[in-house]
């Protein structure tokens, strides 16, 4: 039996959650004050995912950098693969919010998209 300790992120209570696991299977969740804690714990131990936000370099734009994000959550374990894959990416202005910057980042199946409009430098 494996025990994992988590902090619930749903409200300022920050309940200390204890998740008892048998292999991949959740056996018991305790420490939560409400149902949301249980749902969070379940997800966090089975398939933790995060949106990753970052920056990539722009050429010919009014700004030198454009902010980007993974369009959806990616597995938590892939975060650094994702930012490494963005290292040498350069995009040409103009850029619109939602423009795909990198497809299928780090093999996650998720695209990285622009989160800011960058106009062409006059």
């Amino acid at each position: 039996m494996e025990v994992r300790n988590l902090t619930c992120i749903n409200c300022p209570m920050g309940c200390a959650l204890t998740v008892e696991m048998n292999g991949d299977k959740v056996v018991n969740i305790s420490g939560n004050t409400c149902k949301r804690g249980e749902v969070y714990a379940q997800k966090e131990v089975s398939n933790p995912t995060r949106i990753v936000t970052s920056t990539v370099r722009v050429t010919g734009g009014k700004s030198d950098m454009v902010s980007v994000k993974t369009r959806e959550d990616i597995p938590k374990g892939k975060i650094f693969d994702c930012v490494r894959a963005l290292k040498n990416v350069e995009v040409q202005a103009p850029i619109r919010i939602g423009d795909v910057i990198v497809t299928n980042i780090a093999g996650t199946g998720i695209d990285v998209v622009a989160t800011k409009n960058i106009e062409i430098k006059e």
Partner: protein
Amino acid sequence: MYDVIIIGAGVSGAATARELSRYKAKVCVLEKEEDVCCGTSKANSAIVHAGYDAATGSLKAKLNVRGNEKMPSLANELDFAYKQSGSLVICRGEDELPGLQALYERGVANGVKDLRILNKEEVLEMEPNITDDVFAALYAPTAGIVCPFELNIAMAENAYINGVEFKFDTEVKDIKKLEAGPDEFEGYELHTSKGVFKAKYVVNAAGVYADKFHNMVSEKKIRIIPRRGDYCLLDREAGGHVNRTIFSLPGKLGKGILVTPTVHGNLLLGPTAIDVEDKEGTNTTSDGLSQVLEKAGMSVKNIPVKQVITSFAGLRAHEEGDDFIIGEVEDAKGFIDCAGIESPGIASSPAIGEMVAGLIKEKMGLEEKDDFISTRKGITKPDTLSMEERNTLIRENPAYGNIICRCEMITEGEIIDAIRRPLGAKSLDGVKRRTRAGMGRCQSGFCAPRTMEILARECNKPMFDITKSGGDSKLVVGTNKDVF
């Protein structure tokens, strides 16, 4: 071979350079930092003392009174911020009155004009925020406040325009006497981080390092003790808390902490007096800062201490004899000390320059130049202009319409001027001392990246080479993800 090399580009060095630039002489200033005004001159109370403090007959007394007299006209000639705002030395009880009276008499003996002793009511009418237990005060209307950076920079710029060379990042490592040979040549050889320089005369205006250089050439050793003073600077909103510089009469509780408006409208509290070993030990300590805040409250009530925007420490070059040491070193002909310049050094600086230059002029028989330029125009301060004048300025140069430092409302035009002018700024602190950009309540949080960009553009340097204050004080170290 220079006629004169001045070690140090603080107020003493710059004042000497400026006064020497009146004469036909080849003069060079060597400075170990990247800019003028980087040592004691940049971190002090910025007070133009009236001159009642120092012992009658001392150099401190003489030069203070003379410097104080010269300051208004110098401020006019060289266009730096100065205000004759007056000072009060307060005492708390009748038992302290003789001390105050003695100070008054010393002031009169030193030649300080218009001194008066005020009673409690008069004091509180003048400065309602002075502590209620004030008993009397010595009022010196001739005392003032000055921007020490501008004073220092203005004198240096004026010296430069009049032909004095300045070499920065040039640290003097060793000084050798050049013995009089068959051709009667005499002078000094200065070994520096940037090569060897020779001069007939050397002025040792090296602040806390003055003992080091003096002791290289003289058997009669001196010792300069760095005496640290911690300060707290308050927001401009607190600037009107007092209108004059408020001192406490040194008493049972030691020397008090002064409370003063600055010439730019902030409120300044300090300094402590803590002797340190390290000549670069300009770090504040929590003890020092608490002392400042606590003791300031003893002379002035209700100081809004929550409005502190920055704290800093400076080192006074304290000499054991407790007086300025100015003059040719007895056993080192041609080597002029300008040592032990602690308070009232800022106030005395115009007189120090005059005295040292006068001395060298006599010894070398220097002739006056007929093309000496006595005035210098400072950086245009748009906030002193009318709307029409300001708009004319912006039409001519739109950079004056672009605010970079929003706390002090400093425009891009002023920053560019600070960089491009003679002996211009090369770093963030250099810009700050010249324009006040970054000196306000957000302490450069907003304008630092913008000023860095302007510096990079104007100096044609990459951002990585832009420093806070020269040397290794790099502000950015790489680009995003460069380590991956």
